[in-house]
Structures are given as structure tokens and as C-alpha cells.
């Protein structure tokens, strides 16, 4: 079988390398790496692995057959390819929106952040609202028992906002030709929720005015973060539709802010 790529991958003789054309083996850099390390004679090599322009039909077919199936863990592992420092960087960048977030992400959005930040926000909202309720009950000298409905409500709201809304916006922008990236949408919305964690912590203080200020500040910060980073994508649609979608995004964000205030921080 004239499958040059596979043959050169298996070939470990360093005397007789039958296939000298590294263009075919450049599509599997590890294989050519092995060959070059064991091969003592200098060989002509393309400028960089994987950058050779030669099209090797055998290699691409082979790559397709070893593509990870969509139900295996490995398929999704590429969305979790982040280190601790990267996640912390992205969280900080979302609270203090200095740079373009898509640059901060470096073109590789992850799903770790959105999922775990939204889960954290759910639990933090539940914990903080039960603290607030218990402080309120203590002030009124009433026996306190926690309300698990807060957890259910937080779960529903935050997960909808973190996953369903980005999917909807992605679908809408895709329909109108903005060429959005679903992962980037999810990452934007997910990391945008980070600000609610410190806001929730600080809003335990029993002064309503302070809570309003904090929540509006948090809502404004994450709203600005969202809009600034979605603007380039939205711009690619026509003027009317992009304005409409922008208003939709902002409106949903305002609704979220108000729901958080009235449901969790209102006593």
C-alpha cells in the first residue's frame, strides 16, 4: 500500500530511509521528528512542520479516520485545554475589561470557565441569599429555615443565561450572516458572569442602597464587557439587525441584573 505517511511513521531504520520526501511526512510532525532524530544524514526539510503546501490525500484520509468520535471524552478535551494561570487571567480580564477579550483568549476559547463559573455563581447566590435571609430573620428574632427554592431558581436562571442565551444569540447572528463562533459566545457569556461572585459576597451587607449600587455596578461592568466584545461580530450584519440584536443582548442582561437583585438580594 502506497501510504507514504504511515510508512514513514513506522520506519525507524536510520540507514535506509526509503521515502526521502518530507513533504508527505510533514503533516505528522511527530513521525518526522522521530525520523529526523534517528537519521544521521541531513535531509532537505520544509521550513516548518505542517506548513508544507503539498496535499497528501492518504494522510488526510487517515487523519479523518482517526478523528475523535463526538461521544468520546477526547473530543471535548480540546475545549478544556487551559492551565490555571490562563483561567485566572481570563477571569480578571472579564472583571476589569481593559483589552479585547478575544485577544486575551488568544483564539482558543475554553468551556471550563463558562461551566465552572456559572456553577460557582449558582452556589454563591444560594449561599449568600441564605445568609441574607438568616441575618434578616435574626434581626426580626424569627426562627430561620432556609429556602431551597433559591437554589432551584438560581440554577435555572444562571444556566439559562450562560448556555441557552448564547446559543440563541449565536443562532440569530448566524442567521443574519455575522459568522459568529459558538465557543466565543459561550466564553463571553460565561466569563462575563464572573463579576457576580464578588458582587454577591459584598451584597451581604444589609443596606439596600449599597446592594443596589453594587448590583448595578456589576451589571454595568459585565454588560459593557459583553457588548464591547460582541460588537465586532454584530457589526457584520446589516445596520438594523445588528442594532436589534444589540438591544436584545443588553435587554436580556438588564433583566438578569434585576432578577438577581429582586430574587436574591431583596430582603
Amino acid at each position: 500500500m502506497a501510504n507514504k505517511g504511515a510508512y514513514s511513521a513506522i520506519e525507524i531504520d536510520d540507514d535506509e530511509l526509503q521515502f526521502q520526501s518530507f513533504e508527505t511526512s510533514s503533516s505528522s510532525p511527530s513521525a518526522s521528528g522521530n525520523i529526523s532524530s534517528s537519521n544521521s544524514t541531513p535531509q532537505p526539510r520544509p521550513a516548518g512542520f505542517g506548513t508544507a503546501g503539498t496535499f497528501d490525500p492518504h494522510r488526510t484520509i487517515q487523519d479523518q479516520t482517526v478523528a475523535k468520535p463526538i461521544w468520546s471524552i477526547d473530543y471535548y478535551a480540546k475545549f478544556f485545554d487551559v492551565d490555571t494561570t490562563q483561567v485566572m487571567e481570563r477571569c480578571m480580564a472579564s472583571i476589569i475589561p481593559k483589552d479585547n477579550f478575544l485577544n486575551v483568549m488568544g483564539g482558543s476559547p475554553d468551556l471550563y470557565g463558562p461551566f465552572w463559573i456559572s456553577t460557582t455563581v449558582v452556589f454563591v447566590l444560594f449561599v449568600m441569599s441564605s445568609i441574607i435571609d438568616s441575618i434578616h430573620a435574626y434581626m426580626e428574632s424569627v426562627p430561620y429555615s432556609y429556602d431551597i427554592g433559591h437554589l432551584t431558581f438560581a440554577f435555572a436562571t444562571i444556566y439559562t443565561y450562560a448556555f441557552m442565551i448564547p446559543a440563541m444569540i449565536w443562532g440569530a447572528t448566524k442567521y443574519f450572516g455575522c459568522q459568529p463562533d459558538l465557543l466565543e459566545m459561550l466564553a463571553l457569556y460565561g466569563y462575563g458572569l464572573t463579576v457576580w461572585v464578588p458582587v454577591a459576597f459584598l451584597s451581604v451587607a444589609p443596606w439596600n442602597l449599597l446592594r443596589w449600587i453594587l448590583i448595578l455596578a456589576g451589571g454595568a461592568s459585565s454588560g459593557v464587557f459583553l457588548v464591547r466584545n460582541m460588537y465586532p461580530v454584530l457589526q457584520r450584519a446589516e445596520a438594523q439587525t445588528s442594532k436589534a440584536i444589540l438591544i436584545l443582548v443588553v435587554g436580556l442582561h438588564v433583566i438578569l441584573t434585576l432578577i438577581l437583585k429582586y430574587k436574591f438580594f431583596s430582603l
Partner: protein
Amino acid sequence: MNNSVERDDFLSPAAPSYAEATYSDTYDNPFETNIPQRMNSPSIEPDDVPLPGQKPLSPTRSPLPKVSGNIGSSSNAASSGSASNNLGGGGAGLGVGQAMMGSAIDTLDEPVSETLLRDLRNVGAKLQQVLYPKGRKDILKDWDLWGPLLMCLTLSIVLSVKAQADQKITVFTWIFIIVWMGSAVVTVNAKLLGGRVSFFQSVCVIGYCLFPLVLVSIVSIVVPSIYIRLPLCGVAFAWASWASLGFLSDSNLANRRALGVYPLFLFYFIIAWMILIS
């Protein structure tokens, strides 16, 4: 050992070496290391399953020596592990880990109490390992899901008893969901980040490490004062996290350890919180 015993001879009541021949050398498991031959010949199928056409075993042949649990130098935990495999294979739906496969014939005739006690002893041994993580770490590699189920049910029942009247069912549901889905999600997260953990082992460990929290929840049924509950919950949370970290720390996570460990903390924190405010 009579190596040349025919299959027919195994099953005939007249075979003198019936019990011995069950564990003959002809059924060596290439993967077993130092398991006494007598005890655990790990064939996939026990030898006493009658072949088609053979007459089945008569259950009245009770003067067979009970070889489970007493013979051989393997530890109690190991033999319990193998026997609990039988229980798992015998019809319980829950999976049991890759322990040595004992032969069903020995456990078929024992009293039910012995069967249940063996599993309970196994669960107890694992709980001991969680509470006091010295000694063999391997004991948790032989995963089973009875322990986590026990922990989960106890926690759910205790916390739902203390909930408001119209929320008891919701609380039970939430604790159940949090424990099982939480363990699964933490494990899948570790796997996605590149760690090398086995799914069921990890779920088993996370479930067993709930034990300190379960103890505190039982204590807090009778103790409503927050000044006692807060330190107790804190200690239980720290203990549970430390115990499970000890097991899950040897998966290769490199720069992402914090990313893999944080969900574990979140998981135990939320459970500790629910115990605190119950």
C-alpha cells in the same frame, strides 16, 4: 491437587476431591499475582455452572467446606472484595471493581447474614481508609458503589428530615442530584483536563469521602447551635477534601491541578453548607 480431573468428575457427587478440584491448576489466571490458588481461581465463570446436559448441582450438598473468607493468606479486605464481586455478579445491579473473581459455589450455601456482612465489612474497611488514610491505598481502587449510595441516602434523608415541610422532597432530590451528578461532573472534569483517573474509582472515592460530612449531619440533627455546627462543618469539609485529594492527587494534571481540585472543593463546600444551615 488432582490436575487430571475431568469436568464430569467435578460435578459428580462421588468425586472425592470435589472441593479441591474446583481450584485446580488448570484454571490459572495469568493476571493474578499472589492470590492463593485455593481461594481465588479467577475463572470468568465458576466451575460449578453445569454444562448443558449435565445434571445441576444439588443445593443439599451442604457439607462442603466453606472456603470463602477463611482460607488463604489474603487479607480480609481482599477476600471480601472478591466475595462482594460475587454478590455484585449474583444479581445486584451495582458494579463492582476488578477484584479477584471468586467462585460462586462457596458463597451459595452460606447464610444471608454472612453475605450481607461481608459487603458491610468491605464498606467498613473502605470507610476506615477514608477516615484514617494510612495503610493500603489500594483498598479504594477496588471500587464499589454501595458506599457512596449509603452516604448519599443517609445525607439526603437526614437533610430532608430537617427541611421545611413543603420542601422535604425538593431537598432530598437536590442532595441526591448534587452527590451523584457532582461526583460524575468532578470526575469528568478531571478527565477532560487530561488527568488519568478511572471514572468509577473516582466516583467511589468522592462518595466515600463524604463520610465525615455524613457524621456531622447526623450530629447536627440534635445540635442546633451554630457555634457548634460551624467548626464541626468546617472540620468535616477540610477532612473530606483532604481525604479525597490524597487519592485523586496522583493523576497527571501538571499546571491544571487547581482547575481539577477546585470543583472538588466546591462540591464538598456546598454539602457542608447545606448541613450547616439545615
